[in-house]
């Protein structure tokens, strides 16, 4: 179904929060999902997969243990949202051309929006490489070197992010609508519902501030 990008971001933020992300991380997740959806990529579906995989896990378990050397999680796979947000936080590390390498990353395409924002900050395109996929972005546009490759992989052994001087060339510009299947929307909604307080009669009367007749 066709959705506005604001709808997608709002739904993604609630879902991310419902799955246990902090508010600040939920904001990042929402923006990343929106960014991918605007580029007609599977943002909502990948978010769903990551939230299901890491449901309720503490940040410390899925975020980079250290920013020195290759980035890896404490035990299992790196969360692309935690790793992506951290990469954007310290985007200046990419300025001199040295790569940031992340090991064992789930749903690596979700790292791309963060790389895009890093590229805007650096005012230079950045390349994301995983498996045999190569994606360049200058923040707004994106170029996938071979559109027939599977980019929506569940996990990549290595994700490399590095400044590139390659011109973006023929690219995919962001659109203004996003398409989300009812199934994915419903799966996200299961997480989102956890953020809503069950309605009680008291909250109905007090919480919304009723009390006076409004039919006059």
């Amino acid at each position, binding site marked *: 179904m*066709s*959705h*506005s*990008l*604001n*709808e997608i971001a709002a739904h993604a933020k609630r879902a991310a929060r419902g799955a246990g*992300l*902090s*508010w*600040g*991380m939920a*904001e*990042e997740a929402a*923006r990343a999902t929106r960014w991918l959806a605007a580029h007609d990529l599977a943002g909502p579906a990948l978010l769903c997969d990551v939230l299901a995989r890491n449901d309720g896990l503490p*940040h*410390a378990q899925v*975020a*980079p243990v250290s*920013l020195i050397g290759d980035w890896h999680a404490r035990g299992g796979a790196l969360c692309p949202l*935690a790793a992506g*947000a*951290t990469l*954007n*936080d*310290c985007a*200046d590390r990419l300025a001199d051309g040295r790569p940031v390498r992340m090991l064992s990353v789930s749903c690596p395409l979700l790292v791309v929006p963060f790389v895009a*924002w890093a590229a*805007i*900050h650096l005012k230079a395109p950045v390349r994301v490489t995983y498996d045999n996929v190569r994606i360049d972005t200058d923040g707004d546009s994106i170029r996938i070197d071979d559109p027939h490759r599977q980019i929506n992989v569940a996990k990549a052994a290595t994700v490399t992010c590095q400044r590139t001087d390659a011109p973006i060339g023929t690219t995919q510009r962001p659109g*203004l*609508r996003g398409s989300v299947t009812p199934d994915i929307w419903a799966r996200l909604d299961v997480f989102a*519902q956890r*953020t*809503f*307080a*069950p*309605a*009680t009669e*008291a*909250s*109905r009367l*007090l*919480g*919304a*501030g*009723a*009390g*006076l007749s*409004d*039919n*006059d």
Partner: protein
Amino acid sequence: MRPEATTAQTIARRDPAVVMRLSRLGSFHQSRLSFMRILTRRMTRENWTFSRPVFAFDARGVGHAVYCAHTPDRTYSLIAFGHDLPPEDRSDRVIATRWDSTFTLFDGVPDAADIARLRKNIPLQEAGRVSAKELSVSRANRSVRLWDHVVSCLAAGEQPAQAEVDRVGYLMRTTAVYGSGKLGAADREMIADRPECAAPFQIEMLSVFLTRNYVRDLVQHMASLKGGAATVTLDAEIARSLGIGNSTGLGMAPFLINHPMLLNNWIAAREEAIAIVRNLPRANPAEAQTFRALLGRARVSAERWQSAHPLQINKLRQLRGDLRALADHVAQADLRTGHPWDRLYRWAEDTLGEDAQECLASLLMEPYGALVDPLADRMSDQNSAAFRIDGTMRVGELRAILARAYGWALDTDWTQQQHCARAWYVSAEKLEPRLGERFEEPIAPYEQPLAPGRDAAALAGALQSMDGDAPLAGFLLAHPEHRHSVRRAQIVARAPYAEIRDNTIGSELMPIDMLRCKLSFFGATHFDPRSDRWVRICMFGNAPYPEELAGTQADDWSYPPAHEAGA
């Protein structure tokens, strides 16, 4: 000698620590920078034309109409559906499911297929679905008392009593105007590059402007069906005094906190305007006369402003008294030389309450459209880069920002129940924000991040043990729970009016203060709280109707004509 040169721009914008308190934000008044006035100025300047290609209603008011606004480049159409609503179903609350009229603002001119599609969805409001061709979705209910009075009078060949009209101020009130992607409508980004959409909320304001036209036509139509040949046309001046009501609840309050950059841009534009005028070394007679005349009309507006809420009754009493004192002062004050507006503002700061101070601040801009109106171009939020956190910032620098922007919060004891008595949450029922009692209801697990002060204090606490030279990236990795507060702090460091510098979860919180701030930027008047968290206001009261725009000389319709009451 050029005395101007030595004194120009020496008076700074007001301190955010003064402006961003809730009691002051809750005392704001409409101004030249209000979104309704930005819209009507543009419509007049660009000679927009208007048409009504469809108007088909039966005797019960069931049917639909299309109102088109033609800009130099394109057409926007309000599609209005009229319904027959039993009185027991009429509720302004957001939990209502039926309304007297429902609307959408359509991008272009709808064809029959669009109308058929929208007829199935718009009457359902939140339960319906719209497309990227629709820019807003809204609904309105009649003020039954005034509606019946006006229909009966006109049908009997008489004009309604102006006193009755003034008591309510509108024939219909909207209870929600959804824009920017809600329910599947077009995102703001889709239209943001159109000049007529550059200022905030122009689509929503256009929708309400056209709704007012529809309401006037519908009440006339219903009167004609009832009175036949005996019916008279509603007097143009009475019609002009009628606005569109709006009933607004808590849903609007979190908006200001959730859009810090936008809030900053609104307030910064207004503060810049106030500072520009205060820095003027002298005023000419025409400018002084414009100010005096509009002060008189602002007093008329204050006299006609009604509320049954005890707090608002007190505020109104003080506002009226203060405006009388201001008028007395202005009658003998020199408004011509020696930085007259700054002297006047400083006199008001020492003498009047916040409500009258803010009314004066808005009035100061009135004679200076050429200086003030261009600031409207700065009121949107185009800076999406503000979202990015700078992880290279040192802990010490963040500490300094926190001390500067959240000093009040760092001085608050957040373990005291009265300082965190409330919690904002979203109910499963209508997905609308609500405000609950943290220590009486099981809502804390569902709390929304709408207490920036408390959260900033927690962040400051967590930073205490950190090395001041350490970059923030490492801290954020270990403390994702503070991530949203770090983002806000970095925004407020660049945008000083981005943050409400007051407690948004204390036992003393009056959510209506947040509503009044936002509604004043819309251009609303006659703010009438129905409780501490629900208000009614009037929009476009005394505004020209579409066919009157061309003859409008000055952009001062938001002040009622001086002759209407004994000011």
